[in-house]
């Protein structure tokens, strides 16, 4: 057999896996993505870099579903994402075939993270260069969840998180402004976080809302409307801060 047994990801003398860290760098260069969990909805928002004039924008979907009740957004290498998403979709159906139950969000996240980890410990392969945000509702219990995985293969559940370009500022914003929301409020929170780092406008943001009925992609007009609402609220807040005119 050909020599596929040389590991690419090896430890450095001070205990780092450089390939994994470089993969995280690739993620940091990817487009911004944010996920927010509410009481009855989970929202994913992704930065959309301006599409070339001749490109068919419908073929560049950044938020995809893995099954009727689970959706995924990612930051990083899009080709790697395609491979990972295909494997995850197959696993969702395979699980349904063997136990006659849809996957839970935690199960499929664990599967994807396991796959990402495998590629950090195999010969002849490099790690996947993407972090994913996975949202969905568990079957039967209908509990909403948001999980994040990264190239090292770790995963955890979040109330709100961001990944990709400028994720730190988005996360700071979310930490400052997060509260338990539901329905449209959750959508607004996600878009506000995204607007911290992305130029405003429906052309530059892709948003999808997951409820226990399924995934719904918001179209440009809807996003523009919400953005307008947010700007109006911001302006009102500014005005209130300035205070009523002082009496001399």
């Amino acid at each position, binding site marked *: 057999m050909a020599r596929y047994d040389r590991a690419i990801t090896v430890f450095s003398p001070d205990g780092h896996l450089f390939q994994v860290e470089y993969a995280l760098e690739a993620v940091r260069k990817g487009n911004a993505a944010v996920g927010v969990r509410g009481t009855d909805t989970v929202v994913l928002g992704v930065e959309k870099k301006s599409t070339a004039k001749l490109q068919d924008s419908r073929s560049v979907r950044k938020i995809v579903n893995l099954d009727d009740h689970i959706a995924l957004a990612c930051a990083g290498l899009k080709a790697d994402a395609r491979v990972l998403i295909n*494997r995850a979709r197959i696993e969702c159906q*395979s699980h349904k075939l*063997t*136990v006659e*139950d849809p996957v839970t969000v935690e199960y499929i996240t664990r599967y994807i993270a*396991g*796959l990402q980890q495998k590629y950090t410990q195999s010969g002849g392969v490099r790690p996947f260069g993407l972090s994913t945000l996975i949202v969905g509702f568990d079957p039967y219990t209908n509990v909403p969840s948001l999980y994040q995985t990264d190239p090292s293969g770790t995963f955890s559940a979040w109330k709100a998180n961001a990944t990709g370009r400028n994720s730190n500022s988005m996360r700071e914003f979310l930490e400052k402004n997060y509260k338990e929301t539901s329905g449209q409020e959750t959508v607004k929170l996600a878009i506000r976080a995204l607007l911290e780092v992305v130029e405003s406008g429906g052309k530059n943001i892709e948003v999808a809302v997951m409820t226990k009925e399924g995934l719904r992609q918001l179209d440009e007009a809807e996003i523009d409307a919400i953005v307008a609402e947010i700007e109006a609220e911001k302006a009102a807040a500014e005005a209130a801060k300035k205070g009523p005119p002082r009496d001399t």
Partner: protein
Amino acid sequence: MWHSTKSHDKQVIFCKSTAFLFVQGMGMKLNTSALESHRLVIGTSDELPNGFSTAPSFEIPNTTDFDCFQKEAIQMVKPAKGTTTLAFIFKEGVMVAADSRASMGGYISSQSVKKIIEINPYMLGTMAGGAADCQFWHRNLGVKCRLHELANKRRISVTGASKLLANILYSYRGMGLSVGTMIAGWDETGPGLYYVDSEGGRLKGMRFSVGSGSPYAYGVLDNGYRYDMSVDEAAELARRAIYHATFRDGASGGVASVYHVGANGWKKLSGDDVAELHYNYYPVEPTIVEQVMVET
């Protein structure tokens, strides 16, 4: 004895391209090894062109009609399912009952076999067919159910457990396993009952009876069944059905055990010797003597 040409949990050497689609990760892998054809390799060459080595094989006997011989051999290995087991779903859960006789042809080898197998505290399996096959595969199923619980932090459903067993039995189809079992349990969706057999069949239902005594048990069970019985009524129905089957079927007898599966798991309700049950149902009455022999 049939030599198994593959191991069922690892990657099979002969893979069709479809097998690669199901990635062996932390998740479930659909057991597609049954889709490959197991041809007993006639001939002794161990190397195939691509460098794959063949599974070990044995020499084929010299017969004129090999297919017939194969069928006969399978029939010889497959013991008849001499037993009576039954299970049914009713308002309060699932009632499971079985006899306890093991027979080898006309010889009764045991009157005290446990035919209701406790897979885990909320699921039961019944034994019909080969005792070793049933015991081993139920134990194996218990292991898989526990692993599922640990990995997913929730109990496996009865649907899932029966599907796991059915997939395993399907992959051993034609190799002489003899299993006719019912998986009964209570999960998130309520009471569940599935019939799974060694031909790979799997049926969901409300009432099942398996074994050589099942026609007799069905007669009593179908006649007396109502969905809204109490636990005691259902237990009595199950007991009576087993008793009647043991009365008429020579391969069933011993002790009629009755178990109930409720929301909090299973509980053994009773284990009555069927001979004693007979006299409970049909007590001895002094017959009126019609004529007396008189000494002349």
